[in-house]
Each structure stands twice: as C-alpha cells, then as structure tokens.
C-alpha cells in the first residue's frame, strides 16, 4: 500500500503522476528527452544506464521496467542487460559503455564520487562531452525517480510478464502521459 492515497492497482510512478499531474508532466518530459531525445548514446544504451542505476538503488519497479525496455531495444543482443544486472563483466559491452556505466555508478553514490580518472577513462574509450553529460544526468534523474517510487511505497507489480509489456510500450511509444 502506498503511503498516500493514489489510485489502486496503477503501478509505480504512473500512480504518482496521476496524483500530481503538475509535477508528473515535467517528469515525463524529462524521461522522454533523456531516454529517447537527441543524444550520441542510443536509446538502448541509455535504458541500460537507467536500469543499472535503478538496480544499484534497489528500486525493483524502475529496474524491472527499464531493463525490459533495454531488452526490447537490444533485440537479439538482450542478454547484455541481464549480464550487466547480474554484475557480471558483460563481455559484449563496449569499452565506452563500461566506462560510462562506471561514471553512472559513481553518480548514483554521490556526484562528488566521480574522479578525473573516471572521466579520462571514458574519453580514452571514445566518449565525448555529450556522452558524459547525458550519462551523468540520466544517473542523476534515476536517483530522483527511484526515490520517488520507493519513498512513497508505490505499488510494484511482481512477475516478469507485467514488465515485459511495460518495457515494450516504453520502447515503442515512449514516456508521454
């Protein structure tokens, strides 16, 4: 049961967007632009960062839904998502993505944890300013989304089927309310 009175049965963050549409709108716009708008990173790569940060924050709703979206984007490469979330050294990830995920993990902990060496490693692996910017802001934004969902104890569906469908919708239709 959520801590505040939201519509029964509406999952996770969606119930909170409905509760307070004035803040729901900018939050949806943020997810849409960050995960699907113009970026040197593909949507699949950006969903991977989102799922990874949510995994590190222990937010099951965001982790499962964004992992499902990342699987949808990755198609026959989708095992990469599960390798990453099992904290295995996902062999098929590019060096650049590995370096960016390391930065995302530092941001998840605290922005001040990012070091010049982390940035140099990403640059040496081919990351440009816009890659680093988007990685930091996606990791920061999921530090918000995860806390919003769990801080109000919003409804987290169980079972993979619910998330598979959610991920497909996020991948195909996006985040507009």
């Amino acid at each position: 049961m959520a801590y505040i009175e939201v519509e029964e049965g509406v999952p996770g963050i969606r119930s909170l967007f409905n509760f307070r549409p004035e803040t729901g709108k900018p939050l949806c716009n943020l997810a849409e632009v960050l995960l699907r708008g113009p970026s040197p990173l593909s949507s699949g790569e950006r969903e991977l960062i989102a799922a990874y940060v949510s995994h590190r924050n222990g937010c099951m709703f965001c982790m499962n839904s964004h992992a499902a979206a990342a699987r949808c984007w990755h198609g026959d490469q989708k095992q990469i998502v599960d390798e990453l979330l099992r904290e295995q050294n996902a062999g098929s990830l590019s060096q650049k993505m590995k370096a960016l995920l390391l930065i995302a993990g530092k941001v998840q902990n605290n922005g001040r944890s990012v070091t010049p060496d982390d940035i140099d490693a990403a640059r040496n692996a081919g990351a440009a300013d816009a890659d680093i910017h988007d990685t930091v802001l996606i990791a920061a934004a999921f530090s918000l989304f995860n806390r919003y969902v769990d801080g109000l104890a919003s409804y987290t569906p169980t079972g993979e089927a619910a998330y598979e469908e959610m991920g497909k919708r996020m991948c195909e239709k996006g985040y507009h309310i």
Partner: protein
Amino acid sequence: MAWIDLQNDLPGIRGPMIYRPDTGAILNDLAEALLHDENNSLSRGDREMIGAYVSSENDCYFCQHVHGAMAQHYYQSDTSFIDNIKKDFHAADISEKLKSLLTIAGSVQKGGKNVTQDQIENAKKLGATDREIHDTVLIAAAFCMFNRYVDGLNTWAPEDRQVYIDRAPMRARDGYSQAGLKN
C-alpha cells in the same frame, strides 16, 4: 573546472542547463512546480528549506547555499537560523510538522526505502496532508538529482555566501522559469 566544456562560465546547475537547454528547460519547469508555484499548502520557505537540507546532506555546496538563501529570504531570518536547521533541525525553532517532513526528506536522501510507516504516520498526526507528504518526498528526490547533476559534472560554485543571499530576492520574484534564469 567542469569535467566537460559547457561553453559558458555560469556557476552550478546554470552551466549545464544552458549547455543543454532542452533538459534545462524541463528541470526549471520541475523546480518551478515544486518550489515556486503558489498553489501549495507548504510555504515557499519550507519547500526551499527541504531542498537546502537535502543538498546539505548530499554535501552540494552550490545547491545548499542557493536554496538556503531562498529559505532565508522567505523566512526573513538570518543565516545562522538556516545553518542551525541544516545542522540539527530537531533542536531548531521550527514547527513539529516541518520537523516531521524534514525527517522524511532525510530518509529519502539516503534512499527511498528508508522512509518508514512510522515517519509517515507521525507527519500525518502533526497535520501533514497526502499532498504535502508527496511534495516533501519529491522535493527531496529532486534535489538528489540536482545535487548529482551539479557535482557529477564538477561545476564551479561561488565561495562567498553573500552572492547567494544577494540573488535570492530576484529568484523569488521571477521564479525558476526559463526567462528567470537568463538574468
């Protein structure tokens, strides 16, 4: 020096907001709805104070002093009043209800799952509405984003706290809309 070339020399979050205006405008919309919109039973001062407190817990110099100065402006207090709330709000001369909301905000800062049923019940007992609890959680969560954006890119911040205090009346007047940030 920021980790990336922001193509401007604005301090704190204003640098990356101008560097990437499409996300910048959305972040401003969120700040406006949460902190400045008048349609809210939590005062602007209390909402800014929640932001300043969370930023202080996250050790984000720029955000804690921008929003501490905003709270100071709305409260018409001195700087030590704000600093004392950040240091130990339980001992500060503020309402029990605000203390219960700052407790929730402090839990959100550590991670959403740290908020407990007891904390929520205590806030409700002291008169907090569902929407006030919602806004407290979302303001705290939002500052966990803003703080990480500011520090994760290593943006610079003016050291002199008077700079933040001097800017607060203008920000209070104009709000966080895109137009307001051009100043």
